[in-house]
């Protein structure tokens, strides 16, 4: 039975600096965001520093817009696919890192850090080259491997295909952090416990679920909740890879919907309202993981 320490001022002093930084910098902007969502605030109002209070009209506009609902469903599915792939592959690669020799581990770590440090815009450009209709490596390789005729195949004609390209780019870019962090968590698993379980005759999957998983569970919960947050609100890669010219209501993601409807049309009040709705949705999507995480710490 673990008991929490309940001594006086110490915890408050420990969190104070962090809280201070956040409140000082984000306090006003967050309050302002809420205010804006209740106002009509376009270019005219921006120039004159004065909005028109219209109550919840912005929100009813959003909820009455069928584009919003379709975009929401599309984004949820997109997020599920990305998070699933990132966490699944991330876990596998972290386990792989444990099992290879030191030289290969170093090789992989360097590769991961290089991938991690690639600026997102550069990642988009590399992907555009690789998936190019005329001379992309992807078409060339698939045809050579006799997986079909992919000469001059355009990967950006259907929404599903566009998303597949974006997903591959995002997962590639997200793996380094997940793999390195999961591997760090794995290194905290006491080797004595693992050896003891193996000596007892437990199979590898059993060792994993009984010994490893409970130790790394907090970190996995964090990574999953963070991945949900990031993948739901991702903007740069889908916007640039699919192309600013190719964005239309049939392939919007939530962040692009926010950008086009809010800022593209200089409707800052509506943009603020969409931001708050997005915040609420992400909170709902990640509540399970966050609650599990908080409860873990309470044991």
């Amino acid at each position, binding site marked *: 039975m673990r008991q929490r320490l309940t001594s006086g001022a110490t*915890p408050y002093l420990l969190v104070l600096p*962090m809280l201070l930084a956040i409140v000082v910098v984000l306090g006003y*902007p967050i309050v302002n965001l809420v205010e804006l969502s209740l106002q009509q605030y376009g270019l005219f109002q921006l120039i004159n520093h004065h909005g028109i209070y219209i109550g919840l009209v912005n929100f009813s506009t959003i909820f009455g817009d069928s584009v919003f609902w379709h975009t929401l469903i599309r984004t949820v599915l997109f997020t599920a696919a990305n998070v699933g792939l990132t966490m699944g592959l991330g876990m596998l690669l972290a386990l792989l890192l444990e099992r*290879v020799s030191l030289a290969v581990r170093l090789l992989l770590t360097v*590769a991961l850090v290089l991938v991690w440090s690639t600026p997102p*815009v550069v990642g988009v450009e590399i992907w555009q080259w*690789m998936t190019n209709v005329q001379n992309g490596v992807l078409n060339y390789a698939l045809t050579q491997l006799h997986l079909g005729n992919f000469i001059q195949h355009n990967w950006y004609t259907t929404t599903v295909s566009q998303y597949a390209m974006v997903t591959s780019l995002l997962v590639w870019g997200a793996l380094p952090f997940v793999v390195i962090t999961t591997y*760090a968590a794995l290194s*905290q698993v006491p080797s004595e416990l693992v050896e003891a379980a193996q000596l007892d005759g437990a199979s590898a999957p059993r060792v994993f679920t009984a010994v490893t998983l409970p130790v790394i569970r907090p970190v996995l919960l964090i990574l999953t909740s963070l991945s949900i947050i990031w993948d739901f609100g991702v903007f740069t890669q889908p916007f640039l890879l699919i192309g600013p010219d190719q964005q239309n209501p049939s392939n919007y993601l939530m962040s692009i919907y926010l950008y086009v409807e809010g800022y593209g049309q200089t409707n800052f009040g509506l943009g603020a309202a969409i931001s708050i709705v997005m915040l609420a949705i992400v909170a709902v999507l990640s509540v399970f993981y966050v609650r599990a995480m908080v409860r873990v*710490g309470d044991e």
Partner: protein
Amino acid sequence: MSRKRSTRTGWNIVGVGVFLVMVFPVYWMISTAFKSDSQINSYTPSWLPTQFTLQHFRTVMNTPGFWSDVTNSLIVVLVTVVIAVGLSFFAAVALARYRFGGRKLVIVLVIGIQMLPQTGLLIPLFVLLARYHEVGTLSGLVLVYLTFALPFCVWTLRGFMIAIPRELEEAAMVDGASRLGAFVRILLPLIAPGLVATSVYTFITSWNEYLFANTLLRTGHHYTITLWLSDLTGGQRAIDWGAVMAASTLISIPVVVFFLLVQRRIAYGLTAGAVKA
């Protein structure tokens, strides 16, 4: 014994395969940096930079602003990392080891901040910072980066701390260490891998960050390297992809260096001196 070795070889082969797949796009970026312009714009891709040239690297290093912007980025990022990791370690300790009133609220705040769509905050942040003459300055940018880095670092470090049994610190306190001393001397080394992951993440995110840098620094005279890079592709004229790739290659070097340093000093340095349970 030999079965273990052949399994390991098997894993090594898989590992090398994964390495090739992951690193291919990066290889493409680096090899493009060394290719001549005609090879880059060629319709048929060439795997190796057979028309090898250092011209793009020279162009990049001679373009005005490159070195000063790299310096600006380094300053901003290093200050952010040190302060963020430092402050968040202590905040994470509070959340992982203490029970106190308002604890749940702090957790909600920490996770909630990370859910905010950042585009919504750009204009209000600019207006706020402008009031205190912190726009166009590196210090203003550091403040903003800190604010977004802190919740992430706290959240992640807390996760690593929870996995460490409390008994280790209690044992050290029985030996006469103060509570805080126990945290620093026992807990900190044991979550070293977590510190590495968190600090490298903060470094990279701040290093590559564009949205806030673009909003806050455009009216001043100190740009970060991400702004410099985006301006290479921002005009209506032809984009010099060789230069962009050369620049990106150069820009990734500090990240790799930082990772290696941190890996060596934190992960090895701290654990070497830790009191073993």
